[in-house]
């Protein structure tokens, strides 16, 4: 993958608002953002209800994902362009999710909703209508999804990239600073994990930094290109953005997102935890 086939600019989106075969989808951390105004023609996916099983802690299964996209009018051969707030935090999560279920042509709007708004581009309240489709998903691609046992086994072996803020990594905060402080049983990080806050991937306006800047960012913390990589955060959303950077923009081969992330790891009994700003020993 590369920047050319995984990212589109706000101008490209504006130029293609009426192009057939392109579906704009807004996915926001603030699930009401779409209702306050969205890019014309865009549909909404709610990450809390549409993309999560409502009983178990897991994603919707293949059949549920197929039913969801069929009902929203997305076809297998559509180009899906995702955007959202907060540097595309949850849009990147949805991107990873679409890849997990095998959608071939997915792109992110570089800068997401913030860039669109800061450019003073048009938002609308009008809801689009789309014909139902018959969407077919593949089985989940576990080459991009890590689970807890694999993460424990990766300590001291693979690149572990913890993308939370430095205070969460060190154990001084349990959750991002705009959310109430709750969640995992314990604070800290997985031993040997390197802290590269997800926000470092982006410019202030939400667009991704250049490939050279991104390469330098990961080289600086000592990522080992010869090893496989697992990215994690608190609930697997911010790390989707880092997964996107490493896998789709920089072309690293074996990169997984650990969606259980700190809320799972920090509640496991008996696993090692490191406190403080240093990665710690295996």
């Amino acid at each position, binding site marked *: 993958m590369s920047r050319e086939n995984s990212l589109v600019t706000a101008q490209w989106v504006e130029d293609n608002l009426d192009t057939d075969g392109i579906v704009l989808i807004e996915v926001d951390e603030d699930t009401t953002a779409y209702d306050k105004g969205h890019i014309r023609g865009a549909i909404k996916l709610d990450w809390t209800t549409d993309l999560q099983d409502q009983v178990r802690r897991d994603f919707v299964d293949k059949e549920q994902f197929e039913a969801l996209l069929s009902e929203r009018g997305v076809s297998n051969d559509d180009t899906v362009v995702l955007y959202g707030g907060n540097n595309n935090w949850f849009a990147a999560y949805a991107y990873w999710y679409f890849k997990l279920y095998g959608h071939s042509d997915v792109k992110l709007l570089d800068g997401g909703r913030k860039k669109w708004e800061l450019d003073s581009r048009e938002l609308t309240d009008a809801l689009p209508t789309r014909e139902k489709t018959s969407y077919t998903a593949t089985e989940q691609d576990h080459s991009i999804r890590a689970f807890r046992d694999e993460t424990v086994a990766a300590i001291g072996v693979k690149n572990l990239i913890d993308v939370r803020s430095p205070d969460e990594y060190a154990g001084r905060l349990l*959750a*991002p600073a*705009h959310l109430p402080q709750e969640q995992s049983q314990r604070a800290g990080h997985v031993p040997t994990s390197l802290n590269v806050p997800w*926000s470092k991937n982006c410019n202030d306006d939400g667009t991704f930094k250049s490939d050279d800047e991104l390469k330098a960012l990961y080289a600086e913390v000592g990522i080992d290109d010869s090893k496989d990589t697992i990215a994690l955060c608190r609930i697997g959303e911010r790390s989707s953005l880092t997964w996107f950077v490493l896998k789709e923009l920089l072309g690293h081969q074996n990169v997984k997102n650990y969606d259980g992330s700190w809320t799972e790891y920090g509640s496991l009994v008996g696993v090692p935890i490191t406190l403080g700003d240093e990665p710690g020993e295996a």
Partner: protein
Amino acid sequence: MCGAKEGGLSLDGVNVAKEAVIQGQVLRGEEPVPNAYVRLLDRSGEFTAEVPTSATGHFRFFAGDGEWTLRTLAPKAQPVDTRVVAATGSVAEVQVLVSA
């Protein structure tokens, strides 16, 4: 309530005793700015969180004790940096003025 100004964002449902709240409003002149983005940077200037402002220009963070910087981005305005100190059990109220 613990330093919250009259007319500030409602603290209903927030356990102020356990949180170090930073909140406030973004204004252009006297008009609230509903489509601004407020970023919370830690003492080293590192990004910690970001929220869009509400329809009334309001925003809120649950931070930790210490010094923080709010960086506010709004359409057609230069970014504005505002220093703020947060402490558990209190509410730091901030008014951010962006250029007209």
